[in-house]
C-alpha cells in the first residue's frame, strides 16, 4: 500500500530587518547660508549732480564751493548708489570723520570773526525699508555717526544723498568761508546690529 504523505518542510531563515516588501532609505540634504553683507563700488545716480563734478574714484569733487562774489557756500548735492545686500536683520551705520567739511590745512587756528571755518551738510540714506537723515553739523571737529537698524534682510540699491545747503556755515548762515580745501570722509557700514 502506497501512502502519499505531504510533508511540508519549512526552513525559515529570518530575514534581515531591512528586508521587506518595501524598503525606504532617507538621505538628508544640508547646507548653510552665512550672514553676509556686501556692497559694490558706488556710482553716481543719473541726474543727481548739482554743482558736483562727479565721482573721482571714491571722491566727490565740488565744482564751485563758494560764490565768488560773496564767498559764501554754494549749494551742491549728489546721490551715490551702491549695489548692496545683507541677508539678515542688520544695521546701516553712517560715519563722518570730521562731522562736516573742515579745512585740510590744520594750521588754520586763527579765525577772524564773521568767517565760517567749517561747512555742515546732510547725508540721506535710503536702504530697503530704512530711510534716515544724518546731519554733520560742523559744530565741532570729531567723528560723528548714526546707526539705523534694519529689521529684515535687504538687497538692491543703497542710496546716499549728500547735500550742502546754499550758504551753509558753522557760524552765521551765508557767512564767507576762509580760504582752504575742505574735506570730509563719509563711511557707510552694513553690519550686524
Amino acid at each position, binding site marked *: 500500500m502506497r*501512502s502519499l504523505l505531504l510533508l511540508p*518542510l519549512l526552513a525559515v531563515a529570518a530575514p534581515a530587518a531591512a528586508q521587506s*516588501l518595501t*524598503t525606504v532609505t532617507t538621505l538628508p540634504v544640508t*547646507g*548653510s*547660508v552665512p550672514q553676509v553683507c556686501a556692497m559694490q563700488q558706488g556710482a553716481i545716480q543719473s541726474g543727481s549732480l548739482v554743482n558736483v563734478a562727479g565721482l573721482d574714484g571714491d571722491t566727490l569733487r565740488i565744482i564751485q564751493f563758494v560764490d565768488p562774489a560773496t564767498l559764501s557756500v554754494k549749494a551742491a548735492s549728489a546721490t551715490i548708489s551702491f549695489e548692496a545686500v545683507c*541677508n539678515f536683520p542688520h544695521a546701516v551705520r553712517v560715519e563722518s570723520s570730521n562731522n562736516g567739511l573742515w579745512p585740510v590745512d590744520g594750521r588754520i587756528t586763527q579765525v577772524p570773526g564773521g568767517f565760517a571755518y567749517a561747512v555742515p551738510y546732510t547725508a540721506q540714506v535710503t536702504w530697503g525699508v530704512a530711510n534716515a537723515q544724518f546731519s554733520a553739523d560742523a559744530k565741532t571737529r570729531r567723528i560723528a555717526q548714526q546707526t539705523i537698524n534694519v529689521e529684515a534682510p*535687504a538687497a538692491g540699491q543703497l542710496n546716499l544723498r549728500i547735500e550742502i545747503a546754499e550758504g551753509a556755515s558753522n557760524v552765521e548762515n551765508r557767512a564767507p568761508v576762509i580760504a582752504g580745501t575742505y574735506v570730509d570722509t563719509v563711511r557707510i557700514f552694513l553690519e550686524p546690529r
Partner: protein
Amino acid sequence: MRRQAAIFSALLAALALPGSALAAEAPASGDTDSATVGIIGTVPAMCFGGTLTGDGTFDLGVLVDLTTGQLRTDLSAPNKLLVGSFCTSRSSITVSATPLEAQNYTAAAPNGFSRVVHYQASAAGWTALPATYNTGAASNAAATQSRSTAFTGDITVAISNFSTAGGASLRLVGDPSYRGVVTVTLAAVN
C-alpha cells in the same frame, strides 16, 4: 515579519491533517513499500534597500556666493551608493525629495530674497532609466520606474540642478541650517 509568521502557521495547519491521517494507517504488510515526501519552500517577495556608503548626508556646505548673496553656480555633493540592494521579484523604485529650506528663518522671505532651494534627485542603476524627482516641478512623471525581474545591484543616488525658488536673481536669507530630504523607496510587487 507578520506576513511570514502567517505563512508559517498556515503550513503547520496543513501538516497536522495528513499527520493525523497517517497515525490511523495500519502498518505496511508487503515486502516493498514507498512513501513520497513533498518539500515546499517559500521565498516571499521582498526587497533590501542596500547598505549606504558614507554618512548618508548630502552636505552642500555654503550655498551662496559670499560676494553677491546669490546661490552658488558650482554646488555639488558626492553621490551616495546603496550597495547590494535587491528585490526578489519584480519591483519599482521611487525617488522623492523635499527642497532645501531655511530651518531657523521660517518667516516669509522679504522682497529680493528666498528661503528655499530646489534641486533634482535621481536614483540610477536599478532600472534602465533613472528615477528622478525635481522639488520645484509641478509633477514628476519619472519619479517611479519599474523593472519586471528580480534584481540585485547598487543604486546611485545623486542630487543636481540647484535653483533658487522664486528666481535666480533672488538672494538666500542667512541661516546656518538649510535642510531637505531625499527618499528612495524600493517596492517588491507580488
